[in-house]
């Protein structure tokens, strides 16, 4: 199950993040939230939960009055003009584990949101404090960008802020400037049926959650994501990502056998007779040496990487 708001607030306190909290009746829109905390000294945020055609998800967390144009954003991400749309309601529950009207950067604390990319409005950094929902929309908390960053770093993400109102040209010589925010991990989620997008609020702005203060956690696309499968390219069988000694030996034996079989034929037997053994061995060594060394280097690098990963995640003994 996902983290609850209480667990989140406890965690914020553990991290010594300074925040103020306000309880109020459930709110689903920025306007409704404004009625209760609009004058409490923090900027309101709007938070969008988006999805692209390849079922990758994004949280966009911005100041309430920052203009967010989904078409521009889609292009800047390299998804073409119409590549981004509001994520279906079901995804809110399944991926972010928050109710309707509660999209918030804090949702990335949940495992299910591991691959969700987070785009933070740089406007958040200009405000003393910003309001967000801490996983429940009957409460709003305000904190500054520094506190938000601290939280995000504790989840293993690297906060990065973007000018959401910018509209740079994207073309042959100008690569999409936000391409770095495309999640690179494979989504392990089932294919959610494309339902109607989350309801619009009365101002016509597409907001999935009326979260105002935005601690938006930017996702470093190739951050601490465990499950990164390389795409197999054009029929080439992807090599095993883990150092499997058995498979490695099979590959070596395969290559040697193929070469051996091609070297021994009626003609070559006639040609070399008893010397065929020596001749074949020479050829095998000449042709295979570099190939086998390359395979061995790949194996070594993979095994080293596994050890390295284990090393950086090792938990020292508690004394």
């Amino acid at each position, binding site marked *: 199950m996902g983290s609850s708001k209480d667990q989140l607030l406890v965690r914020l306190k553990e991290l010594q993040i300074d925040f103020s909290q306000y309880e109020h009746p459930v709110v689903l829109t920025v306007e409704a939230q404004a009625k209760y905390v609009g004058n409490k000294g923090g900027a309101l945020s709007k938070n969008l939960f988006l999805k692209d055609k390849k079922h990758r998800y994004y949280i966009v967390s911005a100041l309430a009055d920052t203009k967010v144009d989904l078409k521009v954003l889609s292009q800047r991400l390299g998804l073409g003009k119409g590549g981004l749309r509001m994520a279906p309601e079901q995804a809110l529950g399944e991926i972010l584990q928050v109710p309707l009207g509660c999209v918030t950067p804090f949702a990335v604390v949940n495992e299910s949101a591991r691959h969700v990319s987070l785009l933070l409005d740089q406007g958040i950094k200009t405000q003393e404090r910003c309001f967000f929902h801490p996983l429940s929309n009957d409460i709003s908390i305000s904190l500054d960008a520094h506190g938000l960053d601290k939280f995000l770093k504790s989840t293993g993400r690297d906060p990065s802020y973007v000018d959401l109102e910018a509209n740079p040209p994207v073309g042959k010589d100008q690569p999409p400037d936000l391409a770095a925010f495309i999640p690179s991990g494979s989504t392990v989620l089932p294919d959610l049926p494309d339902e109607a997008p989350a309801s619009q609020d009365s101002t016509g702005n597409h907001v999935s959650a009326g979260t105002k203060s935005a601690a938006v956690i930017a996702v470093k696309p190739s951050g601490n994501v465990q499950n990164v499968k390389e795409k197999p390219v054009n029929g080439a069988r992807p090599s095993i990502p883990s150092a499997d000694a058995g498979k490695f030996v099979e590959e070596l034996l395969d290559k040697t056998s193929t070469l051996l079989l091609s070297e021994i034929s009626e003609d070559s037997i006639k040609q070399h007779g008893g010397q065929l053994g020596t001749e074949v061995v020479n050829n095998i060594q000449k042709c295979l040496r570099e190939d086998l060394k390359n395979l061995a280097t790949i194996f*070594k690098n993979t095994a080293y990487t596994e050890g390295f990963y284990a090393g950086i995640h090792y938990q020292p003994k508690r004394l």
Partner: protein
Amino acid sequence: MEKKEDQQLQQEEEQVVNPWEVSAKDGGKIDYDKLIDKFGCQRLDQSFVDRVQRLTSRPPHVFLRRGVFFAHRDLNEILDAYERGDKFYLYTGRGPSSEALHLGHLIPFMFTKYLQDAFKVPLVIQLTDDEKCMWKNLSVEESQRLARENAKDIIACGFDISKTFIFSDFDYVGGAFYKNMVKVAKCVTYNKVVGIFGFTGEDHIGKVSFPPVQAVPSFPSSFPHLFSSKDDLRCLIPCAIDQDPYFRMTRDVAPRIGYHKPALIESLFFPALQGETGKMSASDPNSAIYVTDSAKDIKFKVNKHAFTGGQESIEKHRQYGANLEVDIPIKYLNFFLEDDAELEHIKKEYGAGRMLTGEVKKRLIEVLTELVERHRRARAAVTDEMVDAFMAVRPLPNMFD
């Protein structure tokens, strides 16, 4: 001694070779003799190739045998020291300006891998994401992303992770590295850097202050986590000859700050498919073979776009033979066909007109397809974790084994 460049004045008359532009005189071929003369480096002759073979007890790499790596600075000193038991380290790099790498990009890396294996020495690889951010006006995030993507193709060339450190400027500049950058910068006047690189008053200060970034990986003290006790370790830099200006500047500065001058071993330019006079450009996918090309793509590109020296008709061809000077398939085979005897045979038959262009192209397609296929399989085994491991600031205890 190092000669001064005067590109702006001589642009129309002479060939231009610097890190950001390579063009021949009058749309002709690059004159490498003139280049060696102008830059002041040395020709790599057969005696060097033989010496390398003796020292490493293995056949010299195909690029050495065919004169692809053809010029050097102080290679003899590196080899002398190696013979005495003093090792060295390798330094090479890439400017990650695009995701798509073509075969020309792989050449310095293929050669560097051979050097690492043959001499059993460590290697640092610099990804100049800051340079591309500045020169190609990429965002910081995008240039960092490209650096990581390019790192995967570089790793696929087969470097040994226990002897290789890959770093990106945005990640690594700071600390001891930055201290060396400042030491170098203090020794190069504004006028000098304008003279070497051709900067103008319109160029932003990022460009003007970049050269030290590419210079200091030549000094072991820039990598305290690797070479902390080896302050006089020498450095050998395999690169394409257009990078020479950076290292001329570095070699000029090194003795003034108490460091060894780095040695260089330099390669020819890899010709575009359309011929020596054509330009390989990222926006024209038909000007080069990319590591992501399928077997079908390679066949199409070589058959349709490779510039050949064959005659217009079979009769004429049988009579006069092919013009090997301009024939691209022969040049590409020169780079990538391992078997010396087979290459000689093809050159002889094709030059005499007995072999047709189609056959030569067919052989080239085989060779390139195998190369690209091998690279792709190796690339598929490179994970993000492996990139993290290669790029981690960690000790390499077995780097000379």
